[in-house]
């Protein structure tokens, strides 16, 4: 029997969906290990040994100064471009919600020439509700590779609107960077973008929470006979590629 891939789950003070991400990773066949960013300097080698890297949701540093900004500053300080190196090394990286905000602030896409940001939701308030996501057919993202149909899961954020100009939006589309789109846009995101991948296809940053749909009864339509679209499949994809 093959070894369960080890997933490094990076947390900062205020990260709060790490238990949800860990459950999803366990069910998908990985062995999650939570690593607080404060201890990263000591365990850097351990991060290099991990098979995949997960930045879960939450309010790192209370979202002070803007979502993900201080987590990114911290990660930049201790990791440099480790995440891009990991992706180039074919190790899957996923940033969910606050993790996505952190990846954006870390410059994953800016370094590839795409000027984009995650701004306040169009209606100006935090919103929590279920959405449906469709994988973009153009994408080479390994996390959404081969997904059949839609993914159903909740969003729970106040700053999730992808902001960029038209040229950037088309470029993201044409280069397969858009991994997931909203069927119905909850936050005014440009081009209905819910999730983005990088040049390698090994990084996925997304606002919604597929880790909150890992068993079928979690779907809000469960009692109305509506279901399917497990978010768990995204993690199964990541774990499968981590095992290679």
């Amino acid at each position, binding site marked *: 029997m093959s070894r369960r891939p080890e997933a490094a789950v990076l947390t900062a*003070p*205020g990260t*709060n*969906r790490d*238990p*949800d991400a860990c*459950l999803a990773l366990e069910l998908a066949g990985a062995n999650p290990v939570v690593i*607080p960013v*404060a*201890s990263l300097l000591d365990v850097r080698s351990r991060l290099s040994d991990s098979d995949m890297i997960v930045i879960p949701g*939450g*309010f790192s*540093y*209370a*979202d*002070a*100064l*803007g979502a993900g*900004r*201080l987590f990114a*500053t911290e990660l930049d*300080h201790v990791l440099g471009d480790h995440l891009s190196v990991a992706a180039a090394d074919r190790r899957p990286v996923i940033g969910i919600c606050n993790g996505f905000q952190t990846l954006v602030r870390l410059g994953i896409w800016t370094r590839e020439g795409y*000027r*984009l*940001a995650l*701004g*306040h939701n169009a*209606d*100006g*308030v*935090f*919103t*929590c*509700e*279920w*959405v449906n996501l469709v994988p973009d057919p153009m994408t080479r993202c390994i996390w959404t590779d081969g997904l059949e149909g839609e993914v159903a899961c*909740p969003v*729970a954020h106040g700053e999730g609107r992808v*902001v*960029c100009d038209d040229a950037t939006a088309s470029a993201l589309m044409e280069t397969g960077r858009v991994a997931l789109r909203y069927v*119905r846009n*909850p936050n005014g995101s440009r081009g209905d973008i819910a999730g983005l991948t990088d040049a390698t296809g090994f990084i996925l940053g997304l606002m919604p*929470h597929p*880790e*909150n*749909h*890992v*068993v079928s*009864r*979690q779907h*809000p339509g469960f*009692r*109305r006979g509506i279901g399917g679209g497990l978010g768990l499949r995204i993690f199964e994809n990541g774990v499968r590629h981590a095992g290679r």
Partner: protein
Amino acid sequence: MTAVHCLMVVVRGDDPRGHALLSDAHAMGYASLQSVTISDLIFFQGSLGSNLHSDLEAILVDPLLQSSTWFRSAGLEDVTSLMVESVLHAGVTDAVAEQLLRVARRKGWPVHGVVTGRRIELRGEIPHGLRETLIRRLMVNPVIEHWVVDSLVEPVFAQGASEPIDVADKGVLTENPLPSVSTATKAIHANQAVHLPVRTDADLDALNRARGMALDPAELDAVRSYYAGRGGVAPDIELEMIAQTWSEHCAHKTFRARITTTTGDEIAPLLDQLRRATAQIDARYVVSAFVGNAGILQFTPGTTFAVKCETHNHPSAIEPFGGANTGVGGVIRDVLGASHRPIACTDILCFGPADTSDALLPDGVIHPRRVRSGVVAGIADYGNKIGLPTLAGAVLYDPGYVANPLVFAGCIGMAKSPYVAEGPLPGDRIVVLGGATGRDGIRGATFSSATMDATTGDVAGASVQIGDPITEKLLVDLLADGRHLYRSITDCGAGGLSSAIGEMAEGIGAEVDLDQLPMKYPGLAPWEVWLSEAQERMVVATADPEPLHQACESLGIHCTDIGAFTGTGRLVVRSSGHPIVDIDTGFLHDGRPTRQMVAKLPQPNRIGAFAGAPHLSEGGLSSSTSLDAMNVAEFETILLELLAHPNIACKAPVIRRYDHEIRGATLVRPLVGEPIGGHIIGHADGTVIAEPLAPHGIALGIGVNPWFGMTDPERMGQSVVDEAVRNVVACGGDPDQIALLDNFSWGDPRREETLGDLVATVAGACEAAVAFGAPFVSGKDSLNNEYLGADGGRHAVPPTLVITAVAHVPEASRTITPDLKSAGNALLVVGMTPVAFGGSHIALVRDIAPSSAPPFDQSAPARYRRLHAAIRDGLVVSCHDISEGGLAVALAEMAIAGNLGFDAPTPPPTFRADASDPQRGAAALEVLFGEGNGRFVVEVEQRHVVAFVARMSGDATVIGAVVTGEIARFPVFGEDGMAIPVAALRQAWIGRP
């Protein structure tokens, strides 16, 4: 001398904060206001070169979203109608400032202090005399910030200040003085207690007033006797500590009082009545009731739940965001203090009507709209950031809450191991964990036990503060799985360390040294340190603090050993080597004389309410005074008005602001049903939490109905217990495994009528709890929710009892929701109980003469057991309890949530509505809008109808069926009777097409 730099950041494009302020301003009648710009101000103290300027901008400004400048004085000549700059008072929690300082330290930047503020610019016409009102009503809150108009505000730096900061003496820079803690504090030398004479009535009376101690004459007498043997003088800090410990908030004096009625009858102390009900029920799943920080339940082996609900009314009235915010933080700490991991929050909110006229607001009262937006934002901020789902709740509106909004915040915790309560032992160290201590929240317990008046917001500034959910999250991470790190634990709530350590030291004694405590800033008097209600702190007793220190260090949590429990029975506190407290814990906890109180019991109208048509007053229900002449259209209008009533209307926009998905364990959500335009909008009755892989879970239900209370307090007590129980049964909770939390928010109980209402309510609640076999396990009373207006008038809240029911859900797979599921299914009414109009919602929208509130239904417990068995057997696909607005509203809500119509031609048999009835108008009114206890609407598949009706022993009757069409046909006026498109119902309910 280091310079002060200010970075001003402006959002590009639309700023939602500006929009919100503008719409509030328009709603309050400032119609000619055109636009609002809000800019963030971040002040830095230090030698900042241009390189550091760009480094800071790189962190603080996203050029795609924001623009910024270091020269905010430029462009001031551009005409705005009004510009207000504000900064937070020193010592008010400021997460941005703290995080920036942390980054600066980490990067070695020469930044010594950070203060944040705001510039608000308004454009458009503002009537000159209304500028000050507009500023105070909408733009600033003197409790937490100071401001200047049309000029540049100067920040006050607290961190790194070398001079002791005396809040009372600062503020010369500002137009409004900073709040003074108390003029008495100025006399206090920083390190010593001051001894005050307590020999005469005049001494005590003066102290009681000057220090806001809120003690009554008998209590002051006990204080005098205690100190008579000590030279007739008392250290100020001991007096403050006694005032906190003996406050209504901490000591529940009214609930422990000896009460006689005006007719001379003795009433058992209210707390004893509640405890006796619990003892009589003797439920095996109750591990701990009315002890410690929370009630503890065990429904299945290996898992316990801690449950608690608190009020945070007074703080929320004067600073809605901070008050609600710290209310949530406080109740989460209660659960931590019961050694459980918090898993969910609840919130029940009572506000004045959003359309309250500005002119009707008492002086010093914040407009209900602003209270509401602040409270909702405060709850969302804390719950979302700490990572807990906010699951069950209610939002109520009544003019009685204009001056005294109510905020009930609850928390549920879970633990794996059996809970064993174990007091501290002599020799155990006393360790304080979490946030630093500042001058925040001082005297919260006495403050919340006193009547508010127009100056409360100004003088009680120190009683409120902003929470820091991230620090508390770290405490959760430390403590939730850290049972091995301590022997006993309690949270720092009202009264601060004085309460927390005072309670732990009861009967054992302790020695404490305040010098080691981490401070937010220097200059606090010892009594302020001892009483500070700085948030996010816990106190633990441990034989060996070393493992605790290590665990705290790895998480970055302050951990301070400040003394030990002794076994002497005395509580001794030292500051700078001087003993400043040396008090007998026996006197502190048992020295308070029992209160003697008199209650005038209410005499509710219980005649003639159920035996016929309701009484209508002149010019009443319709243009005609005759009900019989009423036509279908008028009933339709009433239904649509009820659906649009703020108490009944859709709450989805508020509920979506709370994360109810985190942890993945929300099995029945607060919003249920078919998405409409992508949004699920239907309301659940109860909500269910079940861990993603667990076979069972727990259900949460809320009961609250102050309108019944205004009509008949005893029946309110019965009815809200019934409603809470009904709500958990409706979603799959087991009626034989329910525990209750009781939260009373009341006016001043020293008024005989007010106490009489309370006595009657407790009696009603206990009767219903015993009938259901649902024990009370924890509660909280918040009395004196009154506002003394500048006009001398008293504004008390309506009698408000909130019951939270927590039920075992034996099968997570057999939970149900109220939304209609499929066409063809039968609709049944369960429970043929009498209805009434006293305290009903139709009485809120139509002029109906006062009559009784509905009686308790003694057959409800048996009915709920049968219904639960049917739900577990899979016979029921939807279930909705019938409450506010009666059967018509319940049916409409099910149709809206499921986006399906229904055809329900048959009224339940107890009603008298048929076409031949000459009273058909009155009968229809009763069928549609009468409110009663113990009733549900259920949806059952046709193949199960016979089995279901048999199972319910004749207590269920088919009224119609679900249909695919978009029409809802109600059981009145026969075949061609009342039929309304579901879309019209929905439009009324959500307030827009």
